[in-house]
């Protein structure tokens, strides 16, 4: 698969810091769109409990981490078509974001993060003093 294809539950080849416990990280499938006011990011993270989500915005980088509790059989699967593990992905956000107003919501396994853009610096009229 070429690198520009979405890699959902595919690999570990992201630049997430390694954990002490090891294990597989999955790259969640993500949609991102931009409107005049905000950037909205929707991310598929099935099996994550809301309290096990860690959403951070730091120095222009948004990182999303969802811990997934083990589930399934105690022994072997009869049929296994996907793997189970934590989700991790991070994005560098281009426009200037109003950090205080970032909000996140988790519903039916989908994480939605809203990043409102900063109010544009309004043109100011500068008074010129006469000498």
């Amino acid at each position: 698969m070429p690198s520009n294809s979405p890699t959902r539950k595919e690999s570990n080849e992201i630049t997430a810091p390694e954990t002490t416990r090891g294990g597989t990280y999955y790259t969640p499938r993500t949609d991102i769109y931009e409107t005049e006011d905000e950037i909205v990011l929707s991310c598929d993270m099935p099996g994550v409990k809301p309290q096990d989500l860690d959403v951070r915005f730091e120095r222009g980088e948004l990182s999303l981490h969802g811990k997934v509790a083990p589930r399934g059989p105690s022994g072997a699967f009869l049929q296994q078509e996907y793997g189970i593990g934590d989700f991790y992905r991070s994005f560098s956000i281009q426009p200037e974001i109003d950090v205080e107003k970032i909000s996140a919501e988790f519903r039916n396994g989908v994480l939605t993060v809203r990043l409102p853009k900063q109010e544009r610096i309004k043109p100011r009229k500068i008074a010129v003093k006469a000498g």
Partner: protein
Amino acid sequence: MTSLMRWEPFRELHREMRRLQREMDRIFGRWGVELPTVGVPFAAAYPPVNVWEDEEYVYAEAELPGVSMDNLEITVTGTNQLTIKGERKQTAPEKAEWHRRERAFGAFERLVELPVTVDPAKVEARLDNGVLTIKMAKTAEAKPRKIVVKTE
């Protein structure tokens, strides 16, 4: 020396089908085809399904983020045919500038042939944080039987 075994032609067939599926996945990637980066369609076999069992039940699990129970229909027919049918609805506005579109939307239908027979009247389904789990009670003949060994 001879040994008696229960003849389970479907289990055998099922195993063979899975082996073939794995081989195909290895060659073509797990989605069968390469996904485009814009307007992703659902893969032919969506959603992927995991199946396991214990003595009493067979469990099928699928990851269905963004799908609500109202948009899901689960049926068991012919004692071993499980169908998961549903729709994932797009919630993003039409008018937006897209940076990435990796998530698929629309209707899907998946048929799973179970390796053991189940009672269609005893099927329970739950949806937790985007994970669908279907618990199906095995029929009496599909359950392992404990044979009491008499000793003199």
